């Protein structure tokens, strides 16, 4: 079919030139012009009739819809990349907070016996307790007095602090990446201090408070990690329950180590979460957290973090923004951060609707143009 069509096209071209020449000539007769014009029209009709119909390419028509669909899919799947504001109220038996910088805890009064484990040296005021300063072995130290005060726990650098309530006692375990970790204790009244493997406690009746300073690691090797230390004391009546408001963690975990039952049994890790709820201010969602769920928060910029003891559990109240929020319930792990679509639909509804309308209009216009190209 190509050769006759070529011939027709060439004839039509020659005829077109001839027609143009005749038209330019003012002497040409109208009959000749009409004849040439008639021929040209017939040739055009024949050529058009013999042209194969253009393949209607479905791909060219549908690609704008595919683009919009792909964008929507990405927006509905990808999580918001930045930090999301988070409000968390949680009950847990264990809270592990990663502290990004140096911290000195506030003074706390302690009722009952305070046990400090993991410290390497002790300094005592030159008073009734001065003999403690000569002790070589100070792991563990058990203190008891009428007015015991844990005046400060000084952490020199980034550390991991674990608070745990178990068996009516609160334990505070610290693993610091820098040395030294110093615990300041003040005792007043009738006191008994047992250090290390000493056979009996050092007893004294202190009219004025005497201070003790327990040091883990040494200031000379400040860059070396301090040995892990643990402080524990019994919980008193709810009115005197300790509260920690000075911690500003950058990451939170709630894993609890359960010693296996029986000799030689391996310890298991389980989640210490007992329940709570997480509110995302960005989308207004309130997510309940069930007991036993694994919750992990990373990249936290804390505004307010309060950990208090309520009964046999710790209650955590957290306000801040987090980079990563992961919840694992059973074998299902998901990120709790909102997707791009959820975030935009909450904050930029007008923009979303307008851009959807424009994209849709553009797609429809394109399709109409594709179909309109048919003769």
């Amino acid at each position: 079919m190509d050769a006759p069509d070529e011939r027709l096209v060439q004839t039509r071209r020659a005829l077109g030139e001839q027609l143009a020449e005749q038209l330019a000539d003012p002497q040409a007769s109208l009959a000749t012009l009409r004849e040439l014009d008639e021929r040209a029209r017939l040739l055009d009709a024949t050529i058009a009739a013999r042209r194969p119909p253009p393949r209607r390419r479905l791909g060219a028509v549908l690609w704008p819809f595919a683009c919009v669909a792909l964008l929507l899919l990405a927006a509905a799947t990808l999580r918001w990349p930045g930090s999301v504001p988070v409000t968390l109220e949680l009950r847990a038996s264990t809270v592990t907070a990663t502290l990004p910088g140096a911290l000195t805890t506030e003074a706390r009064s302690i009722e009952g016996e305070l046990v400090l484990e993991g410290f390497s040296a002790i300094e005592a005021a030159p008073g009734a307790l001065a003999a403690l300063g000569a002790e070589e072995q100070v792991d563990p130290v058990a203190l008891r007095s009428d007015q015991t005060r844990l005046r400060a726990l000084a952490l020199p650098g980034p550390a991991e602090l674990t608070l745990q309530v178990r068996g009516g006692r609160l334990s505070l375990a610290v693993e610091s990446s820098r040395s030294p970790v110093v615990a300041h204790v003040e005792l007043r009244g009738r006191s008994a201090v047992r250090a290390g493997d000493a056979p009996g406690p050092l007893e004294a009746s202190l009219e004025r408070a005497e201070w003790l300073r327990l040091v883990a690691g040494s200031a000379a090797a400040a860059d070396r990690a301090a040995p892990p230390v643990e402080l524990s004391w019994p919980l008193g009546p709810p009115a005197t329950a300790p509260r920690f408001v000075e911690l500003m963690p950058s990451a939170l975990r709630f894993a609890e180590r359960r010693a296996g039952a029986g000799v030689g049994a391996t310890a298991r890790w389980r989640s210490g979460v007992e329940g709570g709820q997480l509110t995302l201010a960005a989308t207004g969602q309130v997510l309940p957290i069930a007991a036993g769920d694994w919750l992990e928060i990373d990249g936290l910029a804390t505004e307010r973090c309060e950990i208090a003891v309520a009964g046999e559990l710790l209650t955590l109240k957290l306000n801040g923004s987090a980079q990563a929020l992961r919840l694992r319930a059973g074998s299902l792990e998901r990120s709790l951060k909102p997707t791009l679509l959820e975030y935009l639909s909450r904050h930029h509804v007008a923009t979303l609707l307008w851009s959807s309308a424009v994209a849709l209009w553009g797609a429809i216009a394109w399709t109409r143009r594709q179909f309109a190209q048919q003769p």
Partner: protein
Amino acid sequence: MHWLAATMLAPRTAAICALALAASAALAGPFECAPLQPSAARAPAYGPAANPGHCEGFFEKTVSQPFIELLSLTRANSPELPSGPLSLKAGAGKPLRIVVQPLRSRPTYRADLQLDPGAVRRWDPSAMLAATGLRAPDLGFLATADAATPSASSGEPAAFVPVEVLPAAATSATALAVLRVSVPVASVSWRSYRIGGAGEPAPPWTALPGSRLLQWQRIALPIALPPDGRTLRVDIEAVDAQDGRALPQLHFLVLGSQ
């Protein structure tokens, strides 16, 4: 011709000498203003002043008040403070930071001055007195070797050197510490002992007379400095007037003239 050249060169060499002096003073250790939040309401706000090694102004109180606080540690021979510029001196072998603050709890105004070892620092308190409406005896002077704030944060007690205000009558072996309590207090007791004095008898606690104090009230404590110039550690205990329990103690070191 030589004298002409000399007079032309003299200003240049003088400028070079001044530059070298300033550079050496700066190299001695960067003097920074304390990490306080400058006040947004009152002027002048805390910040560097015209001279180097001098920061002054109102600041916002953002940290909670300790129960008992040391405001001033001076030599007991300091006479009645003269009006006009003061000359301050503290015997120590290292650069110190002199903190001048009102003995009252308000207004929150502070001046930080750099003191080079062995030098005398001149300071005009008129700007501070005019801004706060105080008089010269209402000011407390602390000289500390720590970086920015005299409060201990790592568990070590803060170290201070007694400030001497010139002209002094004679070298005195007693330092005067001014303490302020932030809660009503039934009694204040104190003791002092030398660092590293192993085998010495336990230092006795002494109750300060007239130490039944109201909130924000101040009390002066004379401390006898050891003659051999060693560091002295001072422990101060206050008993709360409301429940009779001891408040967290105040510990600080008084550095000797070593």
